[in-house]
């Protein structure tokens, strides 16, 4: 029953998050058209961030040809990569595929007996200007001209502000899914609307989803999955939901997206002028303040401070966010007897743990609980998968856990979680149509016919019962009638 593949899923999942935090962004960008990129690449900050999101080999090829007038030739790439000159062209296309997807390079063309990829001029100009600092788009943020040094928040205050605001939203989500909720501040209306529109929360009394009462939202299974993601992934997902909502209102999202990248290139602790930095995205900037991406001392001031949520947005490998609160994030000790010790006093983390852990003891800085079948299965009913629980446990493992020989989580527990997951999937519900026959002959003929048309789901010859696919019902009924008529006439 226990499959060997269960035992070491942690390795692969550890490799995963290093590339995946921007998965939502990548999915969004992959669906965009050339003209969308042309607009994006007007901002130097976007060019810089997109360059960094490419895989290393592709990135260095782009930097290699950046200062050249000519399109990049396939022979040059072959020589640079020490490939055989007879390498087929599709293979080379594969090497620069990420750049082609991001429209940094145009598709391969044939010119003067050479195969080459022309480079996107807007991108080239943008990246050159980013490196030389000669751009004019103010994409790295115009600093605010302030008269006084008073009232400037420190970096720690900004981090605390960002954490509080964003965790407030997460806490609201998690408290809506618990029987015993704890008092939380309700996020602002626009935030709730976005949570509803993205499907992270839903109003159970409003099955159509048309006009929900946003004061009575409860968390969905998608929302639970969202809670278990790491911070960077959550941020990008929220931003992409926000962007999709903008697009749904047929607003142009390129300006907003390029603002996200600009925020990602700003400095923590520096104040910027909103009207000068983002003249076309004022509304969006105000919306971001509700999620804690930026801090404003008052509603109507032009000055704003990006928080660490914004400035760490583009650091592709999440090390920035990890290093900032690495100690806080690594608090879980899991024993082979399913006991969990969580050294945390963070309400949100405890609430998330409470989703799948039976919490027994609670001290000021320590929570002791147990993974048991009832709670884990309850979590799985909510839509959380075994993989998500495992990746949550391993990404929050206490440094002490690394002192035991790998794998990080004991295989017993990992396997048991997968088994609990499997248990849930033992029964599969499918729609069906049942036929009951009196004549054995008619039953056999119909069964053969249904089997031939791959419409048969199940047959019970002893009781002369047939279960067939619902969409074939009309055809089978037709067949039965015709066969019946022929059998009768035959008698």
């Amino acid at each position, binding site marked *: 029953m226990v499959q060997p593949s269960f035992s070491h899923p942690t390795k692969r999942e550890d490799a995963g998050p290093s590339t995946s935090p921007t998965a939502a962004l990548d999915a969004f960008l992959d669906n965009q058209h050339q003209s969308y990129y042309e607009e994006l690449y007007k901002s130097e900050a976007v060019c810089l961030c997109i360059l960094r999101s490419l*895989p290393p*080999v592709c990135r260095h090829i782009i930097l290699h040809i950046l200062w*050249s007038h000519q399109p990049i030739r396939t*022979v040059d790439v072959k020589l640079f990569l020490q490939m055989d000159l007879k390498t087929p062209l599709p293979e080379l296309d594969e090497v620069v595929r990420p750049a082609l997807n991001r429209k940094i390079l145009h598709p391969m063309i044939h010119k003067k007996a050479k195969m080459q990829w022309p480079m996107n001029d807007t991108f080239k100009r943008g990246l050159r200007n980013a490196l030389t600092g000669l751009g004019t788009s103010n994409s*790295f943020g115009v600093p605010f001209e302030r008269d006084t040094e008073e009232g400037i928040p420190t970096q720690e205050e900004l981090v605390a502000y960002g954490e509080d605001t964003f965790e407030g939203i997460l806490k609201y989500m998690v408290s809506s899914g618990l029987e015993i909720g704890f008092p939380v501040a309700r996020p602002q209306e626009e935030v709730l609307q976005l949570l509803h529109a993205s499907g992270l929360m839903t109003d159970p009394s409003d099955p159509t989803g048309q006009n929900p009462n946003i004061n009575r939202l409860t968390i969905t299974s998608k929302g639970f999955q969202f809670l278990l993601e790491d911070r960077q992934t959550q941020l990008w997902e929220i931003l992409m939901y926000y962007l999709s909502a903008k697009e749904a209102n047929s607003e142009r999202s390129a300006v907003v997206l390029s603002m996200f990248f600009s925020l990602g290139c700003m400095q923590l602790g520096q104040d910027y002028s909103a009207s000068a930095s983002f003249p076309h995205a004022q509304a969006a900037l105000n919306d971001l303040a509700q999620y804690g991406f930026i801090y404003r001392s008052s509603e109507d001031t032009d000055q704003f401070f990006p928080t660490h949520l914004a400035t760490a947005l583009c650091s592709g490998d999440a090390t920035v966010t990890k290093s900032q609160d690495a100690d806080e994030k690594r608090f879980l000790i899991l024993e082979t007897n399913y006991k969990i010790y969580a050294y945390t006093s963070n309400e949100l983390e405890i609430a998330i743990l409470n989703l799948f852990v039976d919490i027994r003891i609670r001290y000021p800085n320590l929570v002791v609980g147990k993974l048991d079948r009832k709670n884990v299965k309850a979590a799985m009913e909510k839509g959380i998968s075994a993989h998500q629980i495992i990746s949550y446990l391993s990404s929050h493992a206490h440094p002490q856990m690394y002192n035991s020989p790998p794998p990080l989580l004991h295989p017993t527990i990992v396997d048991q979680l997968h088994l609990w997951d499997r248990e849930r999937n033992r029964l599969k519900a499918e729609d069906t149509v049942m036929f009951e026959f009196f004549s054995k002959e008619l039953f056999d003929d119909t069964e053969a016919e249904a089997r031939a048309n791959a419409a048969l789901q199940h047959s019970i010859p002893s009781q002369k019962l047939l279960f067939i696919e619902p969409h074939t019902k009309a055809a089978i009924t037709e067949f039965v009638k015709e066969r019946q008529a022929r059998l009768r006439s035959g008698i």
Partner: protein
Amino acid sequence: MAPPTAAVSDVVKSYPKTTAPSILLVILDIHPLSWSLLASPPPLPPYPGHPTVDRVEASPLTLNEFATILMVFLNAHLASRWGNEVVVYGATAGRARLIYPLPPSAEAGPSKPKPNSYRPFQLLDTRIEQGLRELAAEEAARLEGDSVNSVNEPTSIVSALTKALCFINRIVPAVSPAAALADPTASTDPAAPGVTGPDKPETRILVINATPGASISATEQKEANEGQKSQGGQMRGGYVGLMNCVFAAQKAKVPIDVLSLPPPTIDASPPIFLQQAAHLTEGIYWQWNGRGGLLQYLHAIYLPPPSLRQHPFAVPPQDAVGFRAVCFCHHKTLDVGFVCSVCLSIFCEPRPVCLMCKTRFPIKSIPTLKKLATYIEPIPVPDTIPPPVASKGAGAKAQHAADGDKRDKDRSRREGNGYHGDRGEPIEVD
């Protein structure tokens, strides 16, 4: 169609998905005499067989221009990955100084961020400019003062190298054997916190040499001995120090890349000790040909981090390395030397008593040694390794024409790309 697509995935999959953050330590030679030579280069000899390259005039290079090029290159290094860092040392006559980053104690008030430049780039660029100006001003003050002769001192690359290695040692602490024993999983488990695993930064040193070996040695050693045409004389006295640095870097697996700016017209002989340094630490040695295009060369040759070199990116073919040494007694570069069998000091002539460890050798053996030495014929060091014969067709024509005067790709390097990066076979000298 099926077989090529299978191959596609194999090759592309073999490329690394991510690389470790990379720390680049640049040592910039700003010796005033060397830069005055570079600013007025003699005309270049014709470059037969390659009209595009031949058309390019010798391009004078001033420190100002080069600093601009270097800043763009360093920005590109910072741009290529989050977490990449740059450290810059300036080395001038007889002294070396850390230019960037500033020590935290001396942090000057940060200048106002510019709306069109990425803040780290801006900090780096302003600081480099400021640092270079400070060093130049100091140098001028020294000339004004009593120590006019100081300008004749060689560039203290060794001092800068030592500082760079100390810097690396500070940020990348070696795993002590005791710690490795106590925590054997730390280095193998990529998820482990700390500096182990894939997040451990890669470090490399890039030495930008501006001092021509031959000409400095000519001015310096004129009085010492006229006849001996000594190469790499800029290392006079610093030879042991340099070699110690090289071996330390070799042990710490820190590649030392060398870019030698003086083109062959100024500097007929390569700085052999820097070349040895690059060879021993598996760095890249490359000499500028004097025809512009430095920005492109820096990007093409020195930008990929060590983990991406050789596989998949090509490196220029390394010239044959002369493994000559300097004697401890007269600081002459030797083809034939005499080594103390106790302390391994090198001397240019047999000695009855070792100058270093005072070991006595039988005086009778000296004539024999001298006689034997005359039989040894010095092996000439070839200029470069011969260009490869295979894979020429497209390779030779694959000319990049880069910005402005950058259409001067060195033909031998281009062709060499097809050649799988073999280093020149070292020519050993007794």
